[in-house]
């Protein structure tokens, strides 16, 4: 019977091949979306790893996360340097990385930080930042660029750049008297680090010495060299990352920070906050899945059309099979088997296609977007999607099969077309 079904399919290989392709493409799309979703989710969840707490002025969890990790939005208030030092010196704390935001360079955020940033910042499965060129900053007027900044603005090590006051793409207030020299360019990470210009905290302090509340103070210009003579310890920072000596004490420190009396502070767990933020994107995520599911439905409808159009010309074939003793049930089975074989072939081809595409785009995704595409066997949700397609195909295949069944009952041996 399987041979009969396969031969029948082979006889119509033109339409059958097209149908198989349609199913293959919709399978590849649906499973591909599912895989991409899984990968982006895990890559998103590990935008920042290895950091136990993020501490900033009191704000909502997501808000704090947005400006410290994603460099989006405006910090509402700062943390004083004294507070920062006090917490950083706590015996529970292993390391801290100060973050200072507020300036930009041609649309990219400028982040004031310390050299610890390059040592302790982790993303993905605890991957350290790597330099594709140069080294971490050492001097006050030195900058390290994220991969995307360097690529988009064609900056190379040794180039000079001017930091603009504020965060607009077009800024009229520029710190053009104190340019920074690019000393390092980071490798792509697929995280917001790629879109960041990193400078030392002292550099941020230096360019703001002769500024007061957002404007340059006339007649009080301080040159870059003069600035170096002054105390460049910042008065405040935006936030800081904390690594614990012992992770068990994370909650103790979190509580202490949240109850800190001298200043209103928030300490958040990055992992939890990232999960919360991801859940906000759930709508877009589901939209993508719905579109992919629609493509599958279209693919299955294509299969239905292909099966139905041949049904009429196959009435005689059914009558012949009936005449040699095939039961109507056999004919039903034959049709269902054909649909199953079609869908099965489509599914396998689709998976093959998907893995081929993954293999081809892997390199690009990793270097360009820092997205690691797994080549492993289908995950549980992917298998569920595959099973869904197969079940849909069987359901669709049942329609022409039942029609053929009913017809073979009424036609009997005599078909008149």
């Amino acid at each position, binding site marked *: 019977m399987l041979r*009969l079904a396969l*031969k*029948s399919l*082979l*006889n*119509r290989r033109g339409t059958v091949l097209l149908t198989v392709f349609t199913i293959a493409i919709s399978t590849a799309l649906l499973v591909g979306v599912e895989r991409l979703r899984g990968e982006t989710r895990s890559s998103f969840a590990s935008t920042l790893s290895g950091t136990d707490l993020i501490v900033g002025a009191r704000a909502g969890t997501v808000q704090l996360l947005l400006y410290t990790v994603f460099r989006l939005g405006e910090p509402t208030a700062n943390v004083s340097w004294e507070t920062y030092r006090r917490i950083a010196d706590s015996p529970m704390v292993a390391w801290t990385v100060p973050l200072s935001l507020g300036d930009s360079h041609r649309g990219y955020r400028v982040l004031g930080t310390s050299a610890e940033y390059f040592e302790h910042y982790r993303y993905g499965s605890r991957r350290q930042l790597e330099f594709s060129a140069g080294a971490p900053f050492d001097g006050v007027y030195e900058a390290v660029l994220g991969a995307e900044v360097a690529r988009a603005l064609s900056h190379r090590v040794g180039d000079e750049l001017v930091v603009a006051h504020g965060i607009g793409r077009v800024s009229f207030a520029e710190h053009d008297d104190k340019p920074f020299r690019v000393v390092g360019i980071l490798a792509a990470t697929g995280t917001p680090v790629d879109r960041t210009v990193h400078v030392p905290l002292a550099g941020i302090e230096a360019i703001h010495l002769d500024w007061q509340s957002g404007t340059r103070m006339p007649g009080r210009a301080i040159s870059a060299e003069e600035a170096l003579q002054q105390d460049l310890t910042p008065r405040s920072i935006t936030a800081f990352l904390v690594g614990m000596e012992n992770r068990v004490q994370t909650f103790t420190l979190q509580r202490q920070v949240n109850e800190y009396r001298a200043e209103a502070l928030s300490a958040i767990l990055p992992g939890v906050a990232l999960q919360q933020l991801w859940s906000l994107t759930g709508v877009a995520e589901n939209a993508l899945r719905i579109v992919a599911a629609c493509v599958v439905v279209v693919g299955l409808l294509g299969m239905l059309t292909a099966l139905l159009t041949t049904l009429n010309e196959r009435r*005689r*074939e059914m*009558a*012949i*099979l*009936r*005449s*040699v*003793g*095939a*039961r*109507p*049930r*056999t004919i039903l089975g034959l049709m269902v088997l054909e649909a199953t074989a079609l869908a099965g072939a489509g599914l396998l081809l689709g998976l093959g296609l998907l893995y081929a595409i993954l293999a081809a785009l892997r390199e690009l995704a990793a270097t360009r977007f820092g997205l690691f595409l797994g080549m492993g066997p289908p995950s549980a949700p992917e298998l569920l999607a595959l099973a869904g397609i197969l079940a849909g195909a069987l359901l669709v295949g049942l329609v022409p099969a039942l029609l053929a069944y009913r017809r073979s009952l009424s036609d*009997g*041996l*005599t078909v008149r077309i």
Partner: protein
Amino acid sequence: MSETKPPVVALEALRFGWPGQPDLLDLDDLRIAAGERLFLEGPSGSGKSTLLNLLAGILVPRAGRLRVLGQDLANLRAGARDRFRADHVGFIFQQFNLVPYLGLVENVTLGCRFSPARRARLGDAAAQAREARRLVAALGLDVDALDRRPVTGLSVGQQQRVAAARALIGAPELVIADEPTSALDATARAAFVELLFAEVERAGSALVFVSHDPALAALFPRSLSLPALNRAAATEAA
């Protein structure tokens, strides 16, 4: 010898009609003996296809008795009737007799696929294929040359011989031919009937040959007219 066997077909006071409709077929008495060759003249509308579907066990009579090989088909369930047909009845249709995606020999051995009895008579797949080739050759076709081509490329006359071979394979007791020659010209028609006779005789099958063409009646030892037999058609016409 044929007298000792039960008649292949015995029907008495058989009536058939679709539910809620008047009788289409009302036959008083018809017997076909084993190995008999019967010509049944029936223009379209005379209840011919209904009778064929009844003999095939696809339809069940409304009243009366229909025995094939002594078996009352009405007493069998649908599945058993399908099996019965597979084992004991071979069919040749007007045209488009072949399954397009099977080869020539496969089309012939298709007659065995659903019939354990025919398989038992012939043996394994190789034996079935041998018999298929023998039959096709006996019906005047060059098997080796034609088996390699798709059956849809065969001429109508060639297709009809393949169909005859399929009906005959495994020597069923009854072969029913439904207008098998209507697409053939006069010479081919007579030649086909001659070949069919030879193989039917060899297999020991009874042959019911239905056609609207009375010219063929002369070739048969016995011929009947379905409109004359069918009382339902007569009353309707009157």
